[in-house]
């Protein structure tokens, strides 16, 4: 029997980037806000202390900061005809659990999507004709334009202290930046990070073959920075322990470094950790949420009433909660009806290993220290001759040279033994890698739903993921891999080892934690779960944050766009919803 608690104005499910921003914005508006986080509390000191955080075994191998599959996982299959099985170890993607969410252990690679990304179907139809888009590809327009989101991208960049060089300010091209980027109102908050030698080599090689390299935008500060909320951040010292680790010197943007100092002490904000939300509760009309049910670490259930419920958990966890709570019609891929779980997408990546004659210092790294080429992203190039849609950036990232997982040996090297050891020692200071980071379109047969067999720790059906790469993605990715190989060769290395992404999508090797879709935003309730303000069409006092809103995934890391959408939704809630609670968009 759940214990009923005193009501609050707003309950936030999860406490990562989106919840931290919303909690700050909504407590600013005077509301009583409660955040429920299933993981433990963490703060820069002691949890990311420079004395202890550079421990690859503890954090990168033994998953010190991530979600535990024992508590939350999903079942997976490539095709509908297969039986999905539980993912018992983290692999392809690594969601977090704990205060700060994945904002703690990310690399900090922070992009804006292209203007055409937001109106993908319209744009591709206009440029290439409707027949160019395969019939089973369910891509669609977002319902919000880049121009509308531009000020909110700016806000997120100034919250994080993004280090970069603008390529397009107000329509005017700027030397040194990305010539393909969507127009921005002003420069990045901080200048680009200092270059590593490998990125300097990539820059020259990319220019030599006719492309337009630029420093990748980084949420690793290049200088001390006082952010949008008046919080002081430090300066990155290139320790090389970004992805998988928390930052101990306040220089990687995270909720801890950027928001907690002005949020946690507020009288109208409460955080409860180790509280796992299992349901959004609805009234008898099923059109209004009354609050949430959660279970604490002792196993006790609580009913937390609230006027406004905002799902801020990881993308697919939000979708799982919508399905368990009966909010919105679940997607049926056979009947092609329903929306919740529809249009799941991911990222398709590949790499080209480069072994240079010149000496590099791989151990000096930062998560978003890289040089990129955007010539083959989005619709930045003519797709006509290629017969595929989508694209991605190419980048040489120097994120570190950690001893267990971050070293590479040339093709043909045995996987163990004295030859392996010799090759490792000889190549450690000469190894770099060019990554391709490709978009994934949405398809009828790529989706999330509830598993019929397997249940989680609390007895709820697990989320089931059905996903595979399509021919379109393979052809696009192979195209990018070839371009990356071209640049790699122009670096005049002693050897090059392309590693294309072949075959079916496998959930085993780590690729990216960029899971998108399942609760997509749009203008039509028949093909979207939330409206353009991320408000549920079915239950207007429920909003759903995160990359689950993406109708398909673009060729960039999602966090910049997730941050922008959060500020955009916060603005709509503060200035429109609170004044007149109800649907913000007529259906």
């Amino acid at each position, binding site marked *: 029997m759940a214990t009923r608690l005193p009501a609050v104005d707003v309950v936030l499910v999860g406490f990562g980037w989106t919840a931290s921003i919303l909690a700050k914005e909504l407590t600013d508006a005077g509301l009583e806000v409660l955040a429920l986080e299933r993981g433990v509390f963490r703060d820069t000191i*002691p949890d990311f202390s*420079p*004395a202890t955080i550079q421990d690859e075994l503890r954090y990168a191998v033994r998953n010190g900061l991530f979600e535990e599959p024992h508590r939350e996982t999903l079942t997976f299959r490539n095709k509908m005809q297969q039986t999905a099985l539980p993912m018992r170890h983290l692999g392809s993607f690594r969601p977090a659990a704990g205060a700060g969410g994945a904002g703690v252990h990310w690399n900090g690679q922070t992009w804006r999507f292209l203007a055409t990304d937001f109106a993908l179907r319209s744009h591709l139809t206009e440029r290439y004709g409707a027949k160019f888009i395969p019939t089973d590809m369910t891509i669609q327009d977002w319902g919000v334009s880049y121009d509308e989101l531009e000020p909110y991208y700016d806000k997120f960049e100034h919250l994080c202290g993004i280090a970069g060089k603008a390529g397009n300010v107000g329509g005017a091209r700027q030397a040194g930046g990305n010539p393909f980027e969507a127009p921005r109102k002003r420069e990045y908050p901080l200048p680009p990070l200092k270059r590593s030698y490998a990125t300097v080599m990539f820059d020259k090689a990319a220019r030599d073959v006719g492309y337009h390299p630029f420093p990748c935008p980084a949420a690793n500060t290049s200088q*001390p920075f006082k952010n949008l909320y*008046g919080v*002081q951040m*430090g300066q990155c010292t290139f320790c090389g322990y970004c992805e998988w680790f928390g930052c*101990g*010197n*306040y220089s990687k943007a995270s909720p801890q470094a950027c928001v907690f100092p002005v949020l946690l002490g507020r009288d109208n904000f409460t955080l409860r950790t180790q509280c796992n939300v299992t349901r959004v509760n609805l009234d008898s009309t099923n059109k209004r949420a009354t609050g949430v049910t959660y279970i604490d670490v002792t196993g006790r259930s609580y009913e937390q009433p609230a006027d406004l419920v905002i799902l801020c958990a990881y993308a697919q966890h939000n979708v799982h909660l919508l399905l368990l709570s009966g909010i919105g019609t679940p997607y049926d891929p056979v009947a092609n009806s329903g929306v919740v779980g529809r249009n799941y997408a991911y990222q398709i990546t590949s790499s080209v290993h480069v072994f240079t004659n010149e000496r590099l210092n791989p151990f000096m790294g930062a998560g978003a220290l890289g040089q990129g080429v955007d010539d083959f992203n989005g619709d930045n190039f003519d797709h006509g001759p290629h017969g595929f849609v989508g694209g991605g950036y190419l980048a040489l990232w120097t994120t570190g040279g950690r001893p267990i997982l971050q070293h590479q040996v040339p093709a043909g090297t045995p996987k163990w033994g004295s030859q392996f050891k010799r090759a490792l020692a000889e190549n450690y200071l000469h190894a770099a890698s060019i990554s391709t980071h490709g978009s994934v379109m949405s398809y009828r047969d790529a989706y999330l739903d509830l598993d019929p067999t397997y249940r989680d720790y609390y007895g709820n059906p697990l989320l089931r993921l059905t996903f595979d790469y399509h021919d379109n993605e393979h052809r696009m990715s192979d195209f990018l891999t070839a371009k990356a190989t071209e640049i790699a060769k122009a670096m005049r290395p002693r050897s090059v080892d392309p590693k294309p992404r072949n075959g079916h999508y496998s959930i085993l090797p780590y690729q990216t934690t960029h899971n998108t879709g399942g609760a997509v935003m749009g203008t039509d309730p028949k093909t979207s779960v939330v409206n353009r303000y991320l408000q549920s069409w079915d239950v207007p006092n429920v909003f759903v944050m995160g990359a689950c809103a993406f109708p398909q995934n673009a060729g960039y890391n999602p966090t910049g766009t997730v941050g922008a959408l959060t500020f955009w939704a916060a603005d709509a809630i503060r200035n429109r919803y609170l004044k007149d609670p109800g649907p913000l968009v007529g259906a």
Partner: protein
Amino acid sequence: MHARFKSLALMVAICVGACGVAAVARDSNFAEVQRGRYLVYAGDCGACHTDEGGKPFAGGRAVPTPFGTIYASNITPDRETGIGSWTDEQFYHAMHEGRRPNGEHLYPAFPYHWYTRLRRDDVMAIKAYLDSLTPVRQANKAPDLPWPLSWRGAMVGWNALFFKPGAYRPDPAKSPEWNRGAYLVEGLGHCGACHSPKNALGGVKSKDRFHGGQGEGWFATSLTRDPREGLGRWSLDDMVEYLKTGANARARAMGPMAEVVHDSTMHLSEDDLRAMAMYLKDLPGDSGSNGSQTPGHDRDALQRGKLLYVDQCAGCHMEDGEGIRNVFPPIKGSSGLHAHDPSSLARLVLAGAPSARTPAKPEGFAMPAFGAKLSDAQIADLLTYIRASFGNEAGAVSASQVAGVRKKIERTS
């Protein structure tokens, strides 16, 4: 007729008195109450009289002393368990002489020997503020002191040795601002309670006033104008910024001082903080009577310390010791690092500490703990190195000094 009227009036008075309703007409005293509120910030009364998670000024908080634990009293206006029944004279007597209305001596853990300097009208303003608070029914806890200290009468002896009652007398040769600063530092600020050395009986060694002292397990730095160990190189602006925001380009307030900034000094006006700074800057510097400050000459220790510094510290404090402006304080030229008693430094390295959070500087950058990672000998080498490098000139630190601090931390955690 008269007699009946009189006894009726008497009955009314008794009834009214018993109900706790004022029998005397009250004045509106908003200005005085607000002045008292400000002075209570200056005196940092809440630091002892408000328990962690407790009701404001209801007492109960454990105040550690070298002799045992004393529990701060309830100073809300509750008539049974607080000071609601005290008259103005009784309250003044407590602040000025350290005596309760029943004649009992207060322990000098309550700094009456500093508050004695207050003018009477300031004491009355404080009382007016305390009288305006919500009364809380919470009985006081008896102190945890060994005999004979458990007998309050023992304070007669202590007072005879160390207590000279008397309000502050302005020095006509100094400016009004200097005198205001002196009044605050020597009175409500009671800075010397931590920042002055104390003898075995807990009395201030007056000839070394403000040369640094022990407080709550930390060594509070010298506040004199000594250029190395004290505030000699700090400008008035530096000092005001530190007290107002918790940090400046030279240092961040850590440990008990972080609480002082948060609970007290950040609430004071810039004028008052500047006056206090002016007074402190006028204090005579250390004469070197604090013991050997010659830098460590053990080359091996310095070399070991240097390697440790590059490995463990340079990531934040930088290889050149300059730190990162407004984020990590510089090692170079740090007055705190020159403390003749290195116990705070050892404590910071062993257990880490958060720094003050203020509205102006909310981030509260914290020093991480290295006690689990580094041995006492390693920490001693490290401290010896930084105290003798980057232009610093302070004495070596021994492993046994670090071990002593480590033991103290383990005992209290």
